[in-house]
């Protein structure tokens, strides 16, 4: 894999619903082992982009390359070993235990009955331990707090053992402490396990501090780059109406105009 430094590459990508494009001309390359945030105002198409990258909805133009070939040339089963997801929609059955939930992440590797091999079991146990879910593993999902459930869902994605993990708003409904906890966890996963992690978020300030790359969906040039470059180019200034919110490049934070 030495020659292949980018796991995901979008060229001239257009996304939207039906034949209505909401964003076009997106270009970015995501290297292995980096944390990348997709930010932008409400309704701009953050989730649509993430769902398009995750093959949950069709792209309207351009190309997406996953690994060494186009996303569309991969079968469902191949994609399942390349991309894992954490979505905003609640899981269908909250009656699953944490251990059952995480074990389902092994499905792309199990036989026709979904039996876990010894190797799968070791992997699942490691995910449970890594995410400090050991004491919760026999709890049902409906018994967990929002923060615990989010951690369990990320652990399930980790159990799927894919080079790319996509998360849709992993920090909503969490307080500041748990937001930081999840984002630091994602950063650690990206850096120490060499995963490429892409997530959508409204926490622009936190993302600036923690991410390696950011995609800013601003309905115009939709810039992509590392946070410092984006600040210098003034891309965050243009994100919100200036008379309401201003961006302070020194602190990397937004100030309300009084």
């Amino acid at each position, binding site marked *: 894999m030495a020659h292949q430094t980018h796991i995901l590459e979008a060229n001239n990508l257009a996304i939207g619903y039906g034949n209505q494009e909401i964003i076009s001309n997106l270009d970015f390359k995501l290297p292995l082992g980096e944390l990348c945030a997709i930010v932008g105002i409400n309704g701009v198409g953050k989730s649509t982009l993430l769902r398009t990258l*995750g*093959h*949950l909805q069709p792209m309207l133009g351009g190309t997406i390359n996953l690994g060494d070939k186009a996303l569309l040339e991969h079968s*469902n*089963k191949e*994609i*399942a*070993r390349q*991309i*894992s*997801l954490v*979505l905003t*929609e*609640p*899981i*269908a*059955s*909250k*009656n*699953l*235990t944490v*251990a*059952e*939930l995480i*074990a*389902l*992440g092994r*499905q*792309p590797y*199990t036989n*026709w*009955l*979904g*039996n876990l091999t010894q190797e799968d079991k070791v992997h699942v146990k490691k995910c449970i331990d890594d995410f400090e879910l050991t004491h919760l593993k026999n709890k049902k999902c*409906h018994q967990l707090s929002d923060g615990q459930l989010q951690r369990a869902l990320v652990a399930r994605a980790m159990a*799927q053992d894919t080079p790319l993990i996509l998360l849709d708003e992993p920090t909503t409904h969490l307080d500041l402490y748990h937001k930081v906890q999840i984002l630091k966890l994602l950063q650690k996963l990206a850096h120490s396990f060499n995963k490429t992690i892409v997530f959508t978020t409204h926490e622009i300030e936190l993302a600036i501090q923690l991410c390696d790359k950011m995609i800013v969906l601003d309905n115009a040039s939709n810039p992509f780059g590392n946070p410092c470059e984006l600040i210098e180019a003034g891309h965050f200034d243009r994100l919100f109406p200036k008379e309401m919110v201003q961006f302070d490049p020194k602190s990397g934070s937004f100030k309300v105009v009084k």
Partner: protein
Amino acid sequence: MSDHGAVRISFALLLLALACAWLLNISLGSVEIPFTSTWHILLNGSVTDDPFNYIIWEYRVPKSITAILVGSGLALSGLLMQTLFRNPLAGPFVLGITSGASLGAALLIMGTSFIASLGSLVYVGNVSLAIAASVGSFLVLLIVLIVAQHVRDTMALLIIGLMFGSITSALVGVLAYFSNAESLQRFVFWTYGSVGDLSLSQSLLLGGLVIAGVILSIFSIKQLNAFLLGENYAQSLGVSLKKTRYIIIIATGLMTGAITAFAGPIAFVGLAVPHLTRQIFNTMDHKILLPAVLIYGALLMLVCDTIAQLPNSANVLPINAITSLIGAPVVIWLLVRKRNMLF
């Protein structure tokens, strides 16, 4: 993932209960046969001229096997529907699938009498009844599934299922109005439900179709487990959504259609049994739930049939009434106790 020892013990107890219920079902009936004689006849196996022997081998054993097939098939259909529609209140009856089968059967039983008077030569046989009911249940299932694609709200889905039930019963009402007394009576008796007096060929057909449904379900266990996360997650795990949906629909349509054709529209078994089973096994894993609902469904149906027989009396109650009398309070109790019924 649950403790293997506990699962084994639960399965052993469930099988033991099933064996007891089966023996009870066979030893009780309108004719009083001493338990020792029943035991003796079952062990000896041969069919002789002894009337007890005849009753047991020619009537009670086939009836008990039908009850087992009906209970297992309906319970499994309920489990499949609850997972497919991500809805704890889903079941063949609630979603209107049984109504669809009823409409198919009604069209055949009463409609043909209507057409036959015009000189048609349609023959109301076992196979055509099974086909008509299966087609009816497939159609309703497909419509419900198409609606479910557009209506994400599970409450709305159930109400739509109820509406389908109303529409089909209205159509059945119209058919009944125009049909002759004989076929109307035949249809009314069919709606009471019965697991008795199936011919050998009917039993074999029912058995074959239920087993086909079970086999299709077994091959869908992994996908069913993925569906527990929701469809998007299932797809991200490599599951082909379309294929899985179709297999589950075909399995449910076959089982519900065949059962409804031969035993009548039996309510609540499909809805209640998966929940009762989850009370025992406390898991969502279909590898455990699938065999468990088969056993539990058979057990419940045998018990209901034993009650419906009104032991030692010449009367037989409609089995549909018994399953509703037992099933409906169970569902109410589950809702009250757990408030929010989870699946």
